């Protein structure tokens, strides 16, 4: 079996705080193979890859790479052995250019004064060979998340990686970008590279991979050939049961009362209009999906509603009252739940423990803070409840959230922001990085909130999610709403795609419809 494998990880053990994150896990990858690593949040996928890549040291087991037993003490050694990894949370330096990021840590020709121009040229060739439209001289901070992903991948190719490890690369990509990524992976496979890809999306697994290894609770469940399996079997392997399909019932709560209203809202950045003016009214018990390619003003929209960004014109109404001049704190106290897009920067304090992260939404509530003193007992109790309800896998509420797996960090944010039944919710990529079981659970939670009368603004790059959950779909392009469509089951996906690409709405639908 292992005769023609390029990588063999055998019986890998890894313990954190006495708990096994990997328990005798094995993984075999063949040359020129795209191999999927599938499993619930906290199943140990990232841990296994970090061990291979030299970030963590294993507590047991063996790794054979190209027939030789190896042990990497740092990513540097892994790279020297032509193994490269793109992390779940990118590790680029935003203030540097694309090319500087790609060569970071390398001793390029002419070191310590490398010839930037010739390096840039080389990188430009690489970028165009893979059909990536980014310039080597762009600042990374000016790129979209999808763009950053490309930089990470090109970085590995520039270092001649033979095996590429991609940790949830598609979580932050639009469907179009995912398609392009898969084309590139296809090409890499033809060139003889091997790829390990972590993803929660079963259709993607079926589309691109040759074989799948499934982990659950840090153990191997199975390894199967993709051609011999299907989505039902895979979800069974993953979560041990079948998925329920989510059903949305009509909005019966208060179809005429408004929860969140935007009135000719506009945002400027550096004197340039980046959002609106746009108007939208989310009624109580209604969920409006914002569809659009990432980077078309979604971030400005969310931030303007939350209040971290000033609007240059227009109004934000919360529960009928004008909240335009209210502070963020006041908006939150009025009952605004905010599921942030960038969990590590906007939502969590990575070096604080779970209880203190829970407190971040609770510190203005009597129950948790009395005459200035924090009632840690109550915070702990709430945190524990959240762990139970949301099935968050953690080594303890006293451990820094940095140690939570990506999906579990997201669960923590959801648990916190949905606590106390907020009447208005901004859900910005709410299921990004969640496994299928957790995704189903979160969508169910959002629908529950909707059924009990919350107004929800769902901003998502996942069109399936938008179709499954929203009552109406607003299409955002270049900061403007192209159309608001009734999600009655008859929305033409191609038409929606054209709207997202900025082609004008058909006659009859007003480009800025106010309801």
């Amino acid at each position, binding site marked *: 079996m292992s005769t023609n494998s390029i990588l063999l990880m055998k019986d890998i053990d890894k313990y954190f705080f006495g708990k096994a994150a990997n328990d005798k896990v094995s993984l075999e990858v063949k040359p020129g193979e795209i191999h999927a690593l599938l499993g619930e949040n906290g199943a140990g996928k990232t841990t296994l890859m970090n061990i291979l890549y030299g970030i963590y040291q294993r507590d047991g087991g063996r790794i054979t790479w190209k027939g030789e037993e190896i042990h990497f003490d740092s990513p540097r050694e892994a790279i020297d052995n032509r193994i490269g990894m793109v992390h779940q949370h990118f590790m680029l330096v935003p203030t540097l250019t694309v090319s500087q990021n790609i060569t970071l840590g390398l001793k390029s020709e002419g070191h310590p004064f490398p010839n930037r121009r010739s390096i840039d040229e080389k990188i430009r060739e690489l970028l165009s060979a893979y059909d990536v439209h980014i310039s080597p001289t762009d600042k990374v901070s000016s790129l979209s998340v999808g763009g950053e992903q490309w930089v990470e991948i090109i970085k590995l190719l520039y270092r001649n990686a033979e095996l590429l490890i991609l940790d949830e690369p598609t979580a932050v990509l639009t469907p179009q970008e995912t398609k392009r990524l898969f084309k590139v992976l296809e090409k890499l496979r033809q060139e003889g590279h091997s790829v390990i890809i972590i993803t929660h999306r079963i259709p993607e697994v079926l589309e691109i991979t040759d074989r799948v290894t499934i982990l659950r609770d840090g153990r191997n469940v199975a390894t199967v050939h993709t051609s011999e399996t299907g989505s039902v079997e895979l979800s069974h392997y993953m979560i041990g049961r079948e998925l329920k399909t989510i059903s949305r019932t009509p909005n019966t709560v208060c179809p005429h009362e408004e929860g969140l209203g935007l009135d000719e809202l506009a945002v400027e950045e550096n004197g340039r209009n980046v959002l609106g003016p746009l108007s939208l009214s989310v009624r109580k018990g209604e969920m409006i999906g914002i569809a659009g390619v990432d980077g078309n003003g979604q971030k400005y929209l969310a931030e303007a509603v939350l209040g971290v960004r000033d609007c240059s014109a227009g109004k934000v109404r919360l529960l009928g009252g004008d909240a335009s001049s209210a502070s963020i704190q006041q908006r939150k106290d009025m009952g605004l739940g905010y599921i942030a897009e960038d969990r590590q920067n906007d*939502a969590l304090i990575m070096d*604080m423990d779970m209880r203190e992260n829970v407190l971040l939404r609770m510190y203005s509530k009597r129950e948790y803070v009395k005459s200035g003193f924090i009632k840690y007992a109550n915070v702990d109790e709430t945190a524990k409840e959240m762990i139970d309800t949301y099935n968050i896998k953690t080594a303890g509420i006293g451990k820094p959230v940095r140690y939570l797996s990506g999906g579990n960090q997201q669960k923590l944010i959801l648990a916190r922001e949905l606590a106390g039944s907020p009447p208005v919710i901004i859900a910005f990529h709410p299921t990004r990085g969640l496994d299928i079981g957790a995704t189903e659970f979160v969508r169910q939670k959002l629908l529950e909130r909707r059924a009990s009368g919350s107004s929800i603004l769902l901003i998502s790059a996942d069109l399936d999610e938008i179709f499954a959950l929203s009552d109406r779909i607003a299409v955002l392009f270049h900061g403007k709403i192209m159309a608001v469509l009734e999600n009655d089951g008859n929305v033409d996906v191609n038409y929606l795609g054209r709207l997202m690409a900025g082609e004008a709405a058909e006659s009859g639908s007003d480009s800025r419809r106010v309801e």
Partner: protein
Amino acid sequence: MERLKTALSYILIVVIILSLAVVLILSVGSDVPKSFMSFFRGIFGSLYGFSEVLVRATPLILAGLGVSIGFRTGFINIGAEGQIYWGAIAVTTTAYLFPGLPALIAIPLGIVAGFVAGGIWALIPGYLKARFGISEVINTIMFNYIAINILGILVRTVLKDPEYPLPMSSKLPNGFIFPLLMYPTRLHLGFLIALIAMVLVYVLMWKSSPGYKLRVVGLNQRASLCSGIPVKKYIVFSSLLSGGFAGIAGVGEIAGIHYKLLEGFSPGFGYVAIIVALLGKNNPFGVAAAGLGIAALQVGSLSMQRQAGVPASISWIIMGSIVLLILARSTLLTFFAEKEKEKKV
């Protein structure tokens, strides 16, 4: 394994420091065992010596607590020295204005005045940072010079004692003077205040909601903002607290030691306080321990100078080396680990 490495690295630091001390002592031609003996005898040999450690530690702990609060919130306060000076000016001025007050009112009033004055002196750079993004590091340093010279002017003009030709104030009225805790040593009320402050800072930072917010702001400003914490206000608040505790240190030196305002009453307590905060890892109990440790080092060196003829200035060399080694410890650890691996290959 990790723990063993940590322990070993600290042992290594102790060894390096001891060898350095030996070399320094030999280089000035003194006797090594005698010097070490006199060092420890200076600290533990007498009640007076030991009390001197506590006396020296008092301003270091207070100002160190202040600096640590700033550091935790991301307000890099290099200006404790200036804030100490303002605490001193404030208590003297208050005493001049209300000379007849009984101790029960005068002492708390003096402390509050010192806190407010030191706090405001730090609050200005704090506000400039929060409002305009101007570096507080440079501003607080510059404010040190201003404060020191303002004191110089005051003791020559309005606060000057007319009976003496020297630039200093007259003696504080009795009500304002801190009682001694252990006559005949110089140990005064300030030490107790420092201990109380230590507990207060702990409760504030880890048990109260404002302290929680200060720490959150220090760790992630963007997430603080998104959660609704008015980040700028909290930076200003932290600068106020930071300077306030340094201000109390100044009050203690005047009301507990000198009994009058004079130039140069602080031999750089405000700067050493930064080291104290760093060594104490910005934890109030750590700060107290670091303050005591550095005070002991200084007191011991003084005794070494008296009894063995070793210049006390070597205590500064030792102190600098300790800080350097502790800060470089983690970097050195990884460096050596890599070296080892290269050898293996």
